[in-house]
């Protein structure tokens, strides 16, 4: 939520004449209605321009939302409203960018982009992949930068970061990027005027890089005056701990203090070359508010956990995490395989599935649609009743896949057993109360006949 003005603060901006032209008896009553967003400030015919401006500023979100790129893969960042995910949720997942240095040979470049294009995983029904490419100018041939940008754009449709501090090298690259709105990295105290005019000319968002947050704030204000509004802050410090502190301070400044000069999305270049350390830095950036984290090329075993951290931390804590309710096969279940029943709360399902996998017993798992509730909550909410269980098993056809008529229900809802049994003639077996008990249960207690 943007920091709102209170009724009292709004009252101070009003003429305080109690004229009644707004159809409310007093200015105070009107101020309260404005604060509650039930009346617009414009309903007061006498309100000053100054008051309108103050209120408009206060109503603007405390952190700007900035977009990079165009089309389907356009990347949105910023616009965050809370410090902790349990307070509401984190809105725009951290973008993972991969470095593309401009000193590669054509073959190397093609191989590199090809590998990045291959990096995508499906987890819990969601596609995870790389979001951005950071084309970097290294020392050497100046013409190579624009050339690399051109080639990268031919090979990939991911939005770009153009990492280059020399405006003369950058301009041809921006020209090559056309209207694709790459993120320019970065404006510094030395080059900001030229960088700001390039950003304006090519309508591209601009990163600001300084040694301290004070200098950053100073520079964003100047750049904003030049008409550049889509700004991103490079908060990479001398040490990783410095980057970490910068990320936290910036988030607090923008959200708790509505400090506009730092109310922008952020990015960090982790500096470690060791894959485990790099993954650690990326994890900390994701957990602690970073909008873009730029990594070197990583192997899939390195990126899979990093992308999973992002998926988990950016899950909306207010929405029950549900999976599709259907019949799942774990392993290669045959006609003798057990049929387990569970709910479609993702955590419940993944826990059950994990235990079944580690038990090495192939199973059918019939997942009941409980609206994303776990076993006990679903039972309490009448979403896991004998009728629902019977209907689910019948509709999903679990018992048509096997030669027995047995179903295993969660131990926590043992109470459902008799009614299901009487209604259907199936044998209803009480499973363990916790998924962790499944391997032992399946090993010792399950018999198909």
């Amino acid at each position, binding site marked *: 939520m943007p920091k709102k003005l209170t009724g009292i603060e709004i009252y101070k901006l009003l003429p305080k004449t109690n004229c009644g032209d707004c159809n409310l008896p007093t200015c105070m009553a009107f101020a309260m209605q404005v604060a509650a967003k039930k009346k617009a400030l414009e309903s007061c015919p006498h309100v000053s321009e100054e008051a309108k401006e103050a209120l408009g500023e206060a109503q603007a979100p405390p952190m700007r939302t900035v977009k990079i790129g165009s089309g389907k893969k356009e990347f949105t960042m910023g616009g965050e409203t809370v410090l*902790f*995910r*349990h307070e509401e949720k984190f809105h725009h997942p951290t973008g993972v960018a991969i470095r593309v240095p401009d000193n590669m040979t054509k073959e190397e470049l093609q191989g590199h982009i090809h590998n990045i294009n*291959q990096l995508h*995983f499906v*987890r819990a029904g969601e596609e995870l992949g790389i979001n951005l490419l950071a084309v970097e100018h290294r020392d050497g041939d100046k013409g190579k930068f624009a050339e690399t940008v051109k080639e990268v754009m031919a090979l990939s449709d991911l939005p770009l970061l153009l990492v280059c501090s020399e405006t003369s090298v950058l301009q041809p690259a921006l020209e090559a990027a056309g209207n694709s709105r790459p993120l320019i990295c970065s404006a510094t105290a030395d080059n900001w005027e030229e960088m700001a005019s390039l950003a304006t000319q090519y309508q591209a968002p601009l990163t600001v890089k300084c040694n*301290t*947050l*004070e*200098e950053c*704030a*100073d520079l964003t*204000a100047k750049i904003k005056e030049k008409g550049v509004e889509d700004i991103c802050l490079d908060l990479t410090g001398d*040490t*990783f*701990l410095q980057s*970490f*502190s910068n990320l*936290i*301070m910036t988030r*607090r*400044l923008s959200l*708790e*203090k509505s*400090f506009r*000069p730092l109310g922008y999305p952020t990015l960090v270049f982790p500096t470690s070359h060791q*894959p*485990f*350390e790099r*993954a*650690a830095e990326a*994890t*900390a950036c994701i*957990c*602690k508010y970073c909008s873009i984290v730029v990594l070197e090329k990583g*192997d*899939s*075993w*390195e990126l*899979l*956990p*990093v992308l*999973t*951290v992002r*998926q*988990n*931390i950016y*899950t909306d*804590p207010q929405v029950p995490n549900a999976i599709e309710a259907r019949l799942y096969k774990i392993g290669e279940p045959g006609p003798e395989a057990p049929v387990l029943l569970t709910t479609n709360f*993702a*955590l419940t399902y*993944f*826990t059950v599935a*994990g*235990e079944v*996998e*580690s038990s090495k017993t192939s199973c059918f798992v019939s997942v009941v649609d409980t609206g994303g509730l776990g076993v006990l909550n679903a039972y309490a909410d009448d979403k896991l009743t004998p009728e629902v269980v019977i209907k689910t098993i019948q509709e999903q056809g679990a018992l048509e896949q096997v030669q027995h008529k047995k179903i295993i229900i969660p131990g926590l809802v043992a109470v459902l057993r008799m009614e299901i049994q009487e209604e259907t003639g199936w044998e209803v077996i009480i499973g363990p109360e916790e998924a*962790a008990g499944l391997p*032992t249960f399946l090993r*010792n207690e399950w018999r198909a006949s």
Partner: protein
Amino acid sequence: MAVKLPDVKHNWSHKRNTVTIGATRDAGGTRNHSIQVGGESTLPFYHFEGDIPNPPAVAMEVWDIPPEDWPEPIREPFQEVGHTPGEWARKCVEEYGAECICLRLKGCDPHGANRSPEEAVLSAKSILESVGVPLIVWGCGNDEKDNDVFPLLAEAIAGENCLLGTITQDNYKTLTALCTAYGHKLIAESPVDINIAKQVNILALDAGFPLENIVIYPTSGALGYGIEYVYSIMERSTIAGLRGDKAMAMPILCDIGIEVWKTKEARASQDEIPEWGDANRRGALWEATTAYVYLLAGADILILRHPEAVQAVKTFIKKLMGGES
């Protein structure tokens, strides 16, 4: 002219509890050193606004029976020592740098090897004899059996100031009384539920156990398997503790190896899922990354299995404690 930034440092009114585990000879035990966890006056690694007197501690897991169902990447390093807890622990400490050993009494499980309380005592003793680091002892999880094993065990290791667990809201009386009688610290377990977490602490307090001697275990999910629920509960607990909720100011323990090495991401071979890459490093990194996430949420003790994960997590802790040049 530089802009002046508004001050955003929070002045938290309270500190989280400090818990000491392990007793040296001076303190009546036989440990070479003890470890302290907790005591922070701010959120994890927010050095700019408060004190973080103790780095989180990394423990390695040892079983009282050979770890036969462990997948290759974590079974291989312990191949030679898996049948003797003392040797296993020694390898963890001397070769892999474990700061603490967690003995899990897996063999006591009545549905498994069903080892006797006397055998559990021998396992714990052999670890205490072969290493000088503090010891955590974790029951087999069967309430009845644990209540059978711990009376003998807690007495046999009296004075060593071990961390014993776990108590739950349904089973806390026996172990709480034992920890009081023999001077051990207690792990209070709750099922990913902040209210129950608090409740278990209060039950222990009502049974006469000081809150200052409790470490909480809010259940640990692996990365990709509900970690975000635990993450938010840990953040909420930490914040509540810093704001003065005495029943929520305990250091937090995360039992990571056991969760991670159940997952497909850690177990699947490269032949099974080629697009996930090298299986050994993937599993180790899945474990390390799970630990990284918990460190950021406020973990004080992390129990791990893979040597490379231990190494990586220790390196990251050092970096977050300001030990990076």
